[in-house]
């Protein structure tokens, strides 16, 4: 019995972004492709935009005012102990926030003064003050926030979500990352598919140069030339396949070339924002030096989710303000304030905010105190795993509320306290996924995003 190549039977997306034949993929063949899959339970959020504030933004200078800290300003003290790092040990002093806080929206949210635009959409936001992580080191904390595991090598949140739900656009990756010009500490491991099939790897759309590596041929190769080359390739591959008719992976590989060829034409169109109106560009702050970079990412995020991309993660930073927090955080807030407000408004206006989950946070928060560096005191803060800034908008979260609290100097969360794994479980829950059911067998056990299970933070859900 002679069978024709299986191209026709192959799921288009399977061939485009993944046709796993590895160990895990064999055991989970039915889950190895990115086709749309129903959620575990009815969900309000269908997609997610994760605004990743790399470096650790200070909760104390953004959304969590601490009048008590103002009273203690520059008061010195000493800290020691085997559970402290060199950074947090020794002689230290308290640092008040250089920013004023004003109530925002009908909900009366606490928002620091540099946020001019975000305060206008505060009623759409659910601020959360209870999250904690385990590491005060950037790469390990970034890995924990992005993958649930401090040590890297595990799948990113976006990989888990696309593994669970698939994606709605066969021509685009399901999980897109919009990194800064420089990659974060820990590098591309922050959007790795880990042990999940390669289909679910985050695809970075680079802010400069070729958006996807090798998307275009080197100079001098015309599209006609490439078509002709691919035709010869297909001819040679067909003869090879004719003698191996049962080999699905060979047929899939042939198809992947045709899809790559199609992608070359389609991707630039999706990411080209020139077609947007001047009004839109202005709203996102595109064209203004201070907001252009993140404005483009926010607009692109909206365009991508509109095209069916499941999970977009956009990076901004670096929020690691050990010194000069007024200057550094001031500039950083200005660089994201207008773009984020525009994104929330834009999603709302398109009636997409209701089913798009937007998350804003960094890998940890910052300390109320600082160390003596360079011989004197300065307005800055070190890393804090026990309290951090985080908010949610849309996707079934509790708009216009502030959940949880930190102590009176912002050193540690004290109310509605949850480990970051519970934030992950909640994120999955909002997207219709049950962390306990979204598992993958690897290295002897069924692994899950939360590592060993977690709790949905009900207070965040409307």
């Amino acid at each position, binding site marked *: 019995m002679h069978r024709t190549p299986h191209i026709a039977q192959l799921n288009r997306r399977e061939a485009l*972004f993944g046709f*796993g034949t*590895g*160990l895990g993929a064999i055991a989970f063949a039915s889950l190895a492709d990115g086709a749309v899959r129903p959620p575990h339970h009815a969900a309000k959020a269908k997609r997610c935009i994760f605004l990743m504030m790399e470096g650790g933004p200070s909760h104390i200078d953004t959304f969590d005012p601490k009048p008590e800290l103002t009273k203690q300003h*520059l008061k010195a003290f000493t800290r020691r102990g085997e559970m402290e*790092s*060199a*950074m947090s040990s020794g002689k230290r002093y308290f640092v008040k926030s*250089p920013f004023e806080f004003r109530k925002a929206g009908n909900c009366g949210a606490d928002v620091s003064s540099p946020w001019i635009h975000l305060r206008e959409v505060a009623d759409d936001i659910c601020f959360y003050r209870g999250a904690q992580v385990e590491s005060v*080191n950037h*790469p*390990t904390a970034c890995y924990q926030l992005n993958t649930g595991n401090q*040590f890297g*090598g595990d799948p990113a949140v976006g990989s888990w979500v696309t593994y669970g739900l698939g994606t709605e656009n066969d021509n685009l990756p399901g999980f897109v990352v919009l990194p*800064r*010009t*420089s990659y974060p*500490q*820990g*590098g591309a491991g922050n959007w790795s598919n880990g042990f999940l099939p*390669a289909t679910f790897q985050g*695809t970075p759309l*680079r802010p400069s140069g070729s958006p*996807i*590596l*090798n*998307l275009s041929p080197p100079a*001098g*190769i015309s599209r006609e030339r490439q078509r002709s*080359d*691919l035709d*010869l390739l297909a001819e*040679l*591959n067909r*003869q*090879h396949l004719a*003698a*191996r008719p049962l*080999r699905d*992976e060979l047929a899939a*590989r042939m198809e*992947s070339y045709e899809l*790559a060829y199609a992608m070359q034409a389609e991707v630039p169109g999706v990411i080209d924002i020139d077609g947007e109106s001047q009004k839109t560009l202005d709203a996102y702050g595109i064209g203004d030096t201070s907001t252009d*970079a993140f404005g483009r990412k926010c607009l692109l995020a909206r365009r991508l989710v509109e095209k069916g991309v499941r999970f977009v993660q956009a990076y901004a930073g*670096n929020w690691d303000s050990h*010194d*000069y927090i*007024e*200057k*550094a955080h*001031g*500039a950083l807030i200005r660089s994201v304030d207008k773009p984020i407000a525009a994104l929330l408004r834009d999603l709302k206006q398109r009636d997409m905010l209701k089913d798009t989950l937007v998350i804003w946070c960094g890998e940890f928060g910052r300390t109320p105190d600082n160390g003596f560096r360079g011989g004197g*005191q*300065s307005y800055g803060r070190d*890393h804090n795993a026990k309290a951090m800034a985080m908010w949610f908008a849309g996707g079934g979260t509790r708009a216009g509320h502030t959940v949880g609290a930190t102590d009176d100097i912002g050193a540690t969360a004290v109310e509605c306290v949850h480990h970051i794994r519970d934030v992950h479980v909640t994120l999955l829950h909002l997207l219709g996924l049950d962390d306990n059911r979204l598992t993958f*067998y690897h*290295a*002897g056990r*069924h692994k899950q995003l939360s590592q060993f*299970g977690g709790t949905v933070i009900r207070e965040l859900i409307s």
Partner: protein
Amino acid sequence: MKTHLCCIMVLAIAGRAATGQADEGLQVSAGEKLFALRVQPLLAEKCLPCHGADPAAIEGGFDLRNREGLVAGGDSFGEEVLIAGDGNNSKLYLTTTRREEGYEMPPKEADRLTQQQQWWIRDWINAGAPWPGDQRVARIQEAFGDGERVSVSRALSDEWQNRRYDPAKLWAYRPLARPSVPAGRHPVDWFIDRQLAAVELAPAPPADARTMVRRMSFGLTGLPPSPDDVVRFTDAYHVDPAAAISEFAEQWMASPHYGEHFGWHWLDVARYADTAGFANDYSRPNAWRYRDYVVRAFNEDKPYNEFVRQQVAGDEIDDSDVENLLATGFLRMGPWEQTGMSVFKETRGQWLDDVTDTVGQAFLAHSMLCCKCHDHKFDPVPTRDYYRLMAVFSTTQFADREAPFLEPENRDGFAGSDTWVEAKVAAYLKQKKELAAKIDKRRKQEIGNARVGNNGLDPGDEASLARLSKNITRHNLERDRTQPFALSVYTGSTIHRNNVVGRITLPPARWAKGTIDKDAIRSGGNVYSLADPVTPGALSAAESLGGMRSIEFPGGKASRRRALAEWIVDPTNPLTARVIVNRVWSWHFGKGIASHPNNFGATGGVPSHPELLDFLATWFVDNGWSIKKLNHLIVTSAAYRRDSRHPDRQALAANDPLGTLYATFAPRRLTAEELRDAMLSVSGELNPAVGGIPCRPDLNREVAFQPRQIMGGAASVYEPDPQPARRNRRTLYAERIRGLRDPFLETFNQPGPDKPCELRETSTVAPQALTLINSQEVFDRAIAFADRLMREPLADDEARIQRAFQLAFGRLPSQPELTSCLQHWATATAEEANKSYQRTEFPDRVSRTVMAEKTGQPYTFLEIMPAYTAYQPDLQPVDVDAPTRGLAIVCRVLLNTNEFCYLD
């Protein structure tokens, strides 16, 4: 129907007991039996972790340690939690059916109870839910238990200690069997053919010579066969296939490329890298010497037991032997970093976890982390064993130890490396001096009681100063690449370190400074929460079930790792030989006889051919733990020689649906490294030199110039080696930077160097097609390939295409292939004749923009790249004529074909 099933089950137990030693006078009801044999073990495994194991943290107040707690129902259930005699309406049963919204138990889907397990609970409730006392339960289990008890060191709980295992799942711990093979039969085929015969499936016929020569050349050296190899092998194969395979296997294994290829397999397990990862991603300048030690070990066919001893305990055995010191690099291969932002005690704890788990996975196929916080869910490995194994390493300390270069170590390129580092550091120092002068001039006294940055400095200048200093530090570490040090360890006290940068020297007195770590179980895996003390040891089940010779593990200042090494390689250890022969098998066949080479536990599955596995393991030990002999045995089997296609596909699908019977040989895609090496090989550019300091190939320039954050700023640009011969070495020698993966290799499924990789994955994704049709690297190879064809003394164009096919595929083109390629070439040449090319410029400085931490503003700086001052590019289009460029287009297509990228 349901009752009926229940009766069969109870009868089965009674039937078994009748044949065993019955406990005279023990009167037991069916309900009691069900509880003791089924329900209680189920509660212990599935429920107690959250409902009783930690009395201080009982979920939902629902305590399942005793009947009273169960009946009380916790916070959520009332009397309906257990209605004696009515299982179907008891909540305890209903939660296990997962039909109770919000109370699906156990919570994790993967832990769900089977229907039979659910019915045990229901039927037990139907029988009145009797809950006999512990002693009675023990008596019942003793009399009627059908599972197997395993004696282990000591569990955290009695339930676990007394639990019983499905005997079939304990296969890995059993003593090695010595199945016999009839004289004259190849042992591999004897076992494989028996299973094929059992399902009446005829194996596929032998593969043809061309398939075999590619399969063996890649399989044993990772490189394609030369056209000469193909001719010689084909001739010999036609005369006597078995003799040809035997002889050529010896030849390939005698080539130094064998050690490179097999070394790479091992380095996947050891997760080799040249940098430390995390925030600084500092260079590990001497890691390459471990890599070359591994290559040498395979080339010399070092007995595997010796290979294990050296890696686990080389320094303790004899630290005057340089190979011993180099080998212990294995223990330090994982990502590791201690900075001022990390707590030393935790960093130390993380390494101990890492080394315990890695030694478990690599040598014993046990993922030890599974029992770090609780006794193993499925396997007879108590948490105590985890901390016993960890205690072996608690006196192990890092040191970069003096280790003179050995004669076989390749020291080429030392001068070039030092020159580059020197130039890079000098350029940075010059910039730093200029910047410091500028800053000094502009810096103003800050106003106010705390600094806010009103110091008159330009945005970015302060950040640049930090960046320059950090990169100077980083490059200075690279000077040690050419210095005689080994990434190694010693045995001594633990010295607290705040910030580790560069070489760690061996303290003169190893026990004088620091403290000796306390060996104890850490509750919940927490380094601050020490519980029961432990003494060094290993897997107690391997000793009790495997009937291992007893080996004393010393504590204190003695050589703990040496004892572990002896324990691992003891011929009576049931795991070690099975683990390595299974790995070697998987390197040939793409899958193990036991399907998870890093996990021989219950979840890893039972072996497809257990007798073959045992035969190979004992044969291997009998034959001096020789990997080369094992390879020879495997590749001379008929199973290895089979065609990848089967003449009767329906019979194959029907009788071997899981593809585990070896009726055909499993085809595979080349690995990332093989693909790159094969391209360099056919293009004639491959530098076959063996060993030496890492080389830096060209990698995608956008990625090379992509700024990446490290602590203190942006890391330097990636600079390739200036000379093509250094760049175009085997991929094994390419510097592996944890924070900067080569996108070509990553796209083709090269595993990340953070976790041990048991087997390569193969995915087919569109970015692979984009890489092979569009990337500069593949263009470069195609130009060189075409140039080679044009320069060789070949008669005409037809001969050139024929030669291209011979090099790429090991065969001549068919007539239609020849015609198509000639035509394509002609068209391409005509196009190329009308094009003019510019020489690509490679400036030696680049402008980069990153964000200044202290200002939140972008800043731009200039970076000097000394590698580009004398950079010799690979052959460019401008260097060759239009016919060569036209031929390069054909060559590029050949490099993209399935035939080039796959092995049959």
